[in-house]
C-alpha cells in the first residue's frame, strides 16, 4: 500500500463525515464498494490506525449518512450532466441502509471466520455490558474457562476488533457512545446479527460460565465482572 492509499484509507471516513452531501459525493458513495473497504480496514494492511479509531470513524460516517438529507438534484447516470432528477429527500437514508447492510454482513462474516459461532456469540453478547471495555480480558478468560484445549476452537486474541470503541471517560466519549449504540442495535436485532444475536440464552450461558469461573478459579473476586458491578 503506497502513501496515498494509506492516507485515503485513514481519512476517507473522517472527511466524508464532515462533508456537505454534494450530488457528486453522494453519487460516488453509491458506487463505492463499502464491503471491499471494510475488508481492507480489517486486513493486515499497515494503516497505522487503531481499531478504536476505525470504529469511531465508522460510527461517525454512519451517523452522517443517517442524519443528512439531500435536497440537491443528482444526476448519476448521465456523463454529460445534461439531465437531472430530483431524488427523494431521504436519499442518503437509502445509502445508509445499504451501507449498514454491508457492515452487518462484514461483521457476521468476520465472526464466522474467526471463531466457533458459539464462543464468538457469547463474547459479542458480553460487549453490550457497559463495563465491557474494562473487563474484556477477564471476560475472555471466563468464556474460555474449561473449554476445549484445542487452540483453534478458543477465542483468538485479535478477531473482535470491531467491538472496541475506546474508554468512556476519554475526551471522545460521545463518539464511543455512538459506536456502542450502533453495535447494540446490531446485536439486539436477530434479522441483522443472525447467530450472533445477543439473546437470553447467551446471557444465561454467560452467567453460568461466570459462576463456574468464580467457583473454580483462583483469581481475586474483585476482578469478577459481577462483583465489580
Amino acid at each position: 500500500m503506497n502513501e496515498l492509499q494509506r492516507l485515503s484509507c485513514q481519512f476517507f471516513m473522517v472527511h466524508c463525515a464532515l462533508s456537505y452531501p454534494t450530488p457528486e459525493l453522494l453519487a460516488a458513495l453509491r458506487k463505492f464498494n463499502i464491503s471491499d473497504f471494510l475488508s481492507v480496514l480489517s486486513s493486515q494492511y499497515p494503516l497505522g490506525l487503531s481499531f478504536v479509531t476505525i470504529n469511531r470513524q465508522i460510527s461517525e460516517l454512519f451517523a452522517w449518512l443517517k442524519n443528512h438529507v439531500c435536497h440537491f438534484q443528482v444526476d448519476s447516470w448521465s456523463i454529460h450532466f445534461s439531465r437531472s432528477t430530483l431524488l427523494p429527500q431521504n436519499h442518503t437514508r437509502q445509502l445508509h441502509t445499504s451501507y449498514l447492510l454491508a457492515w452487518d454482513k462484514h461483521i457476521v462474516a468476520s465472526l464466522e471466520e474467526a471463531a466457533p459461532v458459539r464462543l464468538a456469540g457469547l463474547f459479542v453478547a458480553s460487549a453490550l455490558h457497559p463495563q465491557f471495555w474494562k473487563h474484556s480480558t477477564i471476560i475472555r478468560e471466563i468464556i474460555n474457562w474449561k473449554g476445549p484445549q484445542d487452540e483453534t476452537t478458543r477465542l483468538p486474541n485479535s478477531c473482535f476488533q470491531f467491538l472496541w470503541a475506546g474508554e468512556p471517560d476519554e475526551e471522545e466519549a460521545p463518539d464511543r457512545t455512538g459506536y456502542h449504540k450502533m453495535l447494540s442495535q446490531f446485536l439486539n436485532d436477530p434479522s441483522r446479527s443472525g447467530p450472533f444475536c445477543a439473546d437470553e440464552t447467551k446471557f444465561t450461558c454467560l452467567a453460568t460460565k461466570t459462576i463456574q469461573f468464580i467457583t473454580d478459579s483462583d483469581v481475586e473476586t474483585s476482578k469478577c465482572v459481577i462483583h465489580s458491578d
Partner: protein
Amino acid sequence: MCFSGMDKLRKVVAWGALHNSKDRPNPPKCHPATRGAVLKKIMEWVEDLDKIYRFMWLYGSVGVGKSAIAHTISELCFEMNILAASFFFSRMAKDCSDSTLVIATIAYQLCCSMPELKLYIEGVVERDPDILQLPLETQVQKLIVWPLSQVNFQPRSSRLVSSRPSLIVVDGLDECGNEYMQCSILGALSGIFKAYAFPIYFLITSRPEPQIHKSFHTEPLSSMTTFLSLDNAYFPDNDIQSFLRLKFDEIKREHPMNARIPGSWPSEMDIKRLVQKSSGQFIYASTVIKYVNSPQHHPTERLDNIITGRGRDTRFAELDALYNRIFSLVDDSQTVEVLSILLFSREYWFPRTVNRKLIDGLLDLKGDALHRKLVHLHSILDIPALDDDKTEIRILHASLRDFLQDPTRSGQCHIGERAHARLTLRLMIFIPSVREEYHSVLLSSSLVFCLLTVLHPMHRHE
C-alpha cells in the same frame, strides 16, 4: 529492552512545542526596535526576585503579536539562563494542541534546566509508567510538585534550585484542545503553589477567551496573576509604524525591481493609512510586507492595491480585505483545494506533513504546476523552493485559518463542508480494493476516464 524513566518521558514530549524546536522554523519574533515597552514590562516582572505574582497572563486579540512576544522573551531568557521550560501551543499541529502532553513536556525540560529534579522525575515515571495517562492535576503533583518538594527539603539542593532557570512560558493557550482542557491546564498549574512557594513562574499568553478570562479571575489564580493586555496602552501603532518603515527600506534596498522604486516611496500618508488599517494587528502589517515584497510584482503597484482597497466595518475588516485582495488574484479552483488540504491536514492528519510530493499525488499535478497555483500566496504560505518536494508547506498564521473557516469573512474562499466533500472524492480515488488486480486494470484501461467521470463528476468541470 528496558527503558529508563527519561526514555519513557522523552516519548511523550511534544518536541514541536519547544520554543527552539526545529519543527518551528521561522517562528514569529518581535522586530528590533518594536514592542520595547511590552518586553520591558515583562522582563521587569521576570527579573523581579521578590515578585508576588507567580503568573503573568499576556492577552490580546488575534494578530497583535502575542506569540512573537512570547518567542522573543523565550529566546532572551534562554540566553540569560532564566528559561526553565516552554510550550508553544498550535492548533496547526496535533501534538502542539494536545493538552495531555503539556505537563510531561514541561517536566522533561525541568530535568534539563534543574538537574536536581531529574532523579525524582525519572523515578516517578519508572515506578509508574502509566502516570502520563493520568489527569493533569495528578501529573502536576507527581512530576512537578513532589520533585520540587523533595528538593526543597534539602538545603543545598534547595539553594541550587533557587538559582536555576525559573521561567516557564506557555504560549497560545487558546490553541489547546478545547475550553475544558484549557481550564484544566490552568487549574493544574495553579495547584503547584498550593503548599509551597516554589521558585518557578509562568508567562501564559492567549486570546482573551471567556473561559480563560474566567479562570484567571477566579481563585486561586486571581491572587497569583498579574495581567498584561496588548491594547493601545502599549502604543502598537508606533511599533507598527517603525516596523513598516524598516521593512519598506529593506524592500527598496533588496527587491529585484528596486531600480524602479522612487526614493520617496512610500509616502508618509501611505504609511499612516497602513498603520490605521492594521488596527494594532501586527499580522496585518507583516502580511502587507510579504505581499508587497513579492519578487514577481512591482512593490509600488502592490502597495497601491492595498491602499485603495476597502474593508467592511468590523474588527477584522482590513485584515479580511487584505486576505480577500490576495485571493482575488487566484483564478484556479485547485488553489483553494490546496489550501483546504493544508488546513485539514494540520487538524486531522497530524503527524503526517503535507509537502509538494503529497499534494502533487493527491491532485495529479506534474512539474511546477503546484508552484504556479500558489504563486500569489507566498505572503500567507510558507512554500519551500521549487526543487524541494519533501519540506512541509505551511499556512503562516492562525488568522488565515480563522478567516478561511468563517464563511461570513471569507465568502467564496470559505473552506468548510464542501471542501471536505471535494477532498473525500479525491481520497476515494486512491482507496485500494481487495480485488487489486481488477482495480489496477481499471486504472490503466481507456475506460478510466469514463468511469472516473461517472464516479466523480467534478472532473468534468476541470
